[in-house]
């Protein structure tokens, strides 16, 4: 609509027309600022991370030698450091499995049985822990797992103190109290990442068409059969999508291993310690490359299995 044909359009109207006729330019203008930000501050940082991992720390002067070399990686692949990597990966795997087992019934209930209203409430109930303060939730477990805390009290009340002591006496995963054991750390990891598993499984379950389940039972599939052969396979992408989060988050976390557990190193803590007190940014960078590579492989496999559709 041209308003008044006699007057020339205002300058910004002419700018609008100019941009309208140059969609590529408009796209570039819209993208320029965010892409510049991400390229400089994120990609640039990632590249510098890679570069740093090829530098090394001069052990004598405590200064970073800006010279490309593989010494830092040699340092990384020592037995002690590889132990840290194995420990972290095993913990991440166990946590992911436990999250899946715990999340599935709730996600299944939400998707299949809950009324619309209840589903909304449950959804919120899962979202709130996901978004509310991570640090405070870790702290809460420090309180819960403490030797004088509620879990010990609970076992005492039930008269099961010997059971708790027996569990804590298990070598490797036990410790002086839950708060200083791998079991405790495992519990906290599961607790913190559980919502990340529930949501993708729930999304995958909600996408299983009702008609498919009906078809299966029409064809004489007994309920058990329908579940194991129809519903569960269709949920696998959701479980894998969830495990991307739980696995990746466990690999990179350093707060939980510093607050709970027997102070043995995990990747995250090693990175934190190397860049902080040790001032060894090159080794910290090299350490960080490990979870990036693991997650890269994991993502490629997950994509093959169709997990990205469930995100």
């Amino acid at each position, binding site marked *: *609509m*041209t*308003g008044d044909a006699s007057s020339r359009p205002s300058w910004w109207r002419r700018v*609008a*027309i100019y941009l*309208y*006729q*140059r969609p590529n330019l408009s796209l570039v203008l819209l993208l320029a600022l965010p892409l510049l930000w991400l390229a400089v501050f994120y990609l640039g940082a990632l590249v510098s991370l890679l570069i740093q991992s090829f530098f090394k720390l001069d052990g004598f002067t405590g200064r970073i030698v800006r010279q490309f070399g593989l010494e830092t990686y040699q340092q990384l692949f020592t037995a002690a450091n590889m132990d840290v990597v194995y420990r972290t990966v095993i913990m991440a795997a166990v946590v992911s499995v436990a999250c899946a087992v715990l999340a599935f019934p709730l996600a299944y209930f939400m998707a299949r049985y809950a009324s619309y209203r209840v589903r909304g409430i449950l959804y919120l109930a899962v979202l709130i822990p996901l978004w509310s303060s991570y640090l405070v939730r870790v702290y809460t477990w420090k309180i819960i797992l403490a030797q004088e805390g509620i879990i010990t009290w609970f076992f005492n009340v039930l008269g099961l103190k010997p059971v708790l002591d027996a569990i804590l006496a298990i070598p490797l995963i036990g410790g002086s109290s839950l708060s200083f054991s791998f079991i405790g750390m495992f519990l906290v990891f599961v607790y913190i990442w559980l919502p990340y598993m529930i949501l993708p499984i729930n999304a995958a379950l909600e996408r299983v068409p009702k008609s498919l389940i009906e078809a299966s039972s029409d064809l004489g599939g007994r309920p058990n059969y329908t579940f194991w052969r129809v519903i569960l396979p269709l949920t696998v992408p959701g479980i894998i999508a969830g495990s991307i989060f739980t696995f990746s988050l466990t690999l990179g976390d350093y707060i939980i291993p510093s607050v709970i557990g027997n102070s043995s190193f995990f990747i995250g803590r090693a990175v934190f310690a190397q860049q902080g007190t040790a001032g060894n940014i090159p080794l910290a960078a090299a350490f960080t490359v490990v979870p990036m590579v693991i997650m890269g492989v994991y993502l490629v496999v997950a994509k093959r299995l169709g997990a990205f559709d469930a995100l």
Partner: protein
Amino acid sequence: MAAHSGRSIAVKMTDVCRHFGDVKAVDHLDLEIYDGEFFSLLGPSGSGKTTCLRLIAGFEHATSGSIELHGVEMVKWAPRRIGFVTVGQRLVSVPPYERDVNTVFQDYALFPHMSVGDNVAYGLMIQKVPKAERQRRVSEVLDLVRLPGYESRKPAQLSGGQRQRVALARALVNRPRVLLLDEPLGALDLKLRQQMQIELKAIQQQVGITFVFVTHDQEEALTMSDRLAVFNRGRIEQIGVPAEIYERPTTGFVAGFVGTTNLISGALAQRINGSDQAVSIRPEKIHMVALDAAVEPGWKAVMGSVRDVIYLGMHTRYLVELEGGGDLTVVQQNLETSSIDVHASRGNRVKLTWDTTSIRVLQGQTV
């Protein structure tokens, strides 16, 4: 069209293409729409009629060709530059907001966060029309679409038919020279649809604006339009006044899409028309008469037997198998017979006659 000579042209499309990769949504289109006309673009879905409308509105950009609105070119060449180096030319369109046309969208596209009054006043507000005049014109146009006093309602509170009227009012209030309507009645139920057809036509005559009306409903197009264009596969098959399209279809597609017809080709065409050129004859043009009835001069007669009878209330459709092969659909009005008699005629031997001038020869050999 002699009737239109001397009338000014509102929309002129010359050799317009709109290709999406390999898909030719609109392919070498030529079209002239006259000022003040009710013009329909008729065709099945995917035939290019909506793309044609969107090209006129400016939502789609022509791949090639020329589109003029009241003599002003809407498709222009601009230099294609890489950096500061000119490497060729590309087509650019005048933006929708610089065109003196308005659109009534298929889904109405009302702004949900605005009241009916603000929706209708939107174009005037953008043009910075003073508030008092804005209010006056909004209430005027709401009267016109028979929604007086609806200014403060929200679109969500309206029925489908009312939303449709708001969409119409929102476009009309700007007094565009051309109003584009994209299947505006598609979402309404049959009764409301028929009522709106009459109202729309009345409004068009009252305001005198050129209406370009997209529809896939041939009956709607025939009853409402001054002229119409039949679309098929991105091309226009035929342009004409409704009676012309119906009575003298030039292609098999038009004959088949507009109304029902007998499309005849090959040996049967040879027997009936003396040439294997494809022809069309409307079922109602064929008369079913007694075996001994005389054949008038200029009329053609063939013998056959009734294979199927479909009773449709006002009329009955017969499928007649011709002696010597082939069959024809015949429609007879139920003037005297009752349905019982109609079904009894199954298997009867009958004589079919028609005026040879009602045979339409179609372009192309096949149908």
